[in-house]
């Protein structure tokens, strides 16, 4: 029975993740259309809601091309490497507290609550860059290679600030277990959320959000793709379902990163002024908070132009890292004072 429950939970959570990724592709196009005073996809289904399905069918029916001179094994491995880590990380995200569906006790709503949940997420999201690098290298194309190289350099410089900022939260809540981090913030008082910790929380939130943009290769940091310079960057040579996997990986990574930001800074599933809320309310709260960050991903993409590559490096090493370190120090001071 516990195995069955785990199976149901896994299919629900992964199904939810994939559906979110699909909805995000539609939302991306719809919101970009609104921002540019266009209408966006509206032909498939009412208001275009079935567009992701049509896209999926199209991806499957497209011809798969492997370029001459490509390293075939790695060329095939790369999309998997890009998509799987992004999907794995969702396993430790706590979506709600004690859950009972139709009298069936599902326990705490997350696949697993690791003691080192945060480390797990960071480690696996760090892995996803391998997909980009390997894909760029195996394609036997100069554009892909440059895209892959940029991605690797960018990941290193931003992962540092990302981890430093995550560390401030670990210091504040005294745990690496994501559920523990949420429970510390879940006091019924929204001011207990980490983003309301004076100075440390706000600086941390801003840094963390920007770092997740870089981490997931999103605008304005999408140098791995960078259409005007590198055609399509690391996925120039990819077609059909292989390309779709990269795409899926990117959107899954975005979703997970939005979840993580919610957990670390916005109190996860904690409902304001209602400490012991039923799981459905908690889940809805979690989804509302996460969708704000997902919206932010899209919103920023259609507002800002891409950075120049050296600007990105300057920002990463000379601005973000010092601020993140100072913030960590400040967090330490804050903890010892309170």
């Amino acid at each position, binding site marked *: 029975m516990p195995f069955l429950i785990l199976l149901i939970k896994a299919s629900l959570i992964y199904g939810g993740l994939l559906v979110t990724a699909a909805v995000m592709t539609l939302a991306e196009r719809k919101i970009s259309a*609104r*921002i*540019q*005073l*266009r*209408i966006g996809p509206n032909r498939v289904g009412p208001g275009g809601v079935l567009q992701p399905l049509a896209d999926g069918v199209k991806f499957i029916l497209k011809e798969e091309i492997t370029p001459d001179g490509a390293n075939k094994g790695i060329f095939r491995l790369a999309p998997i490497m890009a998509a799987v880590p992004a999907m794995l990380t969702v396993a430790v995200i706590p979506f709600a507290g004690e859950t009972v569906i139709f009298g069936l006790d599902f326990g705490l709503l997350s696949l697993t609550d690791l003691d080192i949940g945060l480390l797990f997420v960071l480690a696996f999201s760090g892995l996803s860059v391998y997909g980009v690098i390997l894909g760029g290298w195996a394609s036997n194309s100069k554009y892909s290679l440059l895209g892959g190289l940029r991605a690797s350099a960018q990941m290193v410089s931003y992962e540092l600030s990302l981890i430093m900022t995550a560390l401030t939260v670990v210091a504040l809540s005294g745990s690496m277990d994501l559920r523990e981090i949420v429970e510390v913030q879940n006091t019924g008082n929204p001011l207990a959320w980490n983003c309301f910790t004076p100075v440390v929380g706000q600086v941390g939130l801003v840094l963390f959000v920007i770092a997740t943009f870089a981490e997931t290769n999103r605008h304005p940091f999408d140098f791995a793709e960078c259409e005007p310079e590198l055609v399509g960057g690391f996925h120039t040579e990819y077609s059909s379902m292989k390309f779709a996997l990269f795409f899926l990986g990117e959107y899954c990574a975005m979703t997970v990163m939005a979840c993580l930001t919610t957990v670390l800074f916005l109190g996860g599933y904690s409902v304001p002024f209602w400490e012991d809320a039923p799981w459905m309310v908690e889940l809805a709260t979690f989804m509302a908070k996460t969708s704000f960050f997902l919206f932010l991903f899209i*919103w*920023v993409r259609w*507002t800002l132009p891409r950075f120049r590559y050296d600007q990105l490096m300057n920002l990463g090493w000379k601005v973000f890292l010092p601020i993140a370190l100072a913030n960590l120090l400040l967090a330490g001071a804050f903890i010892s004072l309170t």
Partner: protein
Amino acid sequence: MVVVQRRELTFWERMYLPEIVRGLVITFKKMFEPRVTRQYPEQAMPTTAVTRGQPRLTVKDDGNIACVSCGLCEAACPAYAITIDGKETDRFIEREPERFDIDMLRCILCGFCEEACPKEAIFMSNELELANTTREGLVYDMEQLKRSTSTLQPRIDYVRKINDRW
């Protein structure tokens, strides 16, 4: 040598984040503005009398075609899109076309046929859409080209007005 004077950025602007927020606010406001897209097949482009669409033949109110198959439009056509075979008729005008084909793939919508026509028989209509699955289907014959005078009336009035200037 031109020296471009660039404005010094203020401290607030160099902080960068406030300016990003300003940009975000602008794009957020844009989301609620009316959209400018025209849904083309459903909402066609508005046309006027000046619109020079595909050529069409006028059918007079008594149901007869105005063309007398003089061949002037055929001669004027720079793209050789028009083919006319004439025949005799009992009507007062004595001649009318037996075959009047316009190859719409050749037609460049220049309007020379309209200018050449002495009988007000061919006009550039406001029809702009041209699509088919075969090339043969785009060679329009006389039946496909016939339009009543009333549908072409705005264009007829416009052409008369232009011609009155000379």
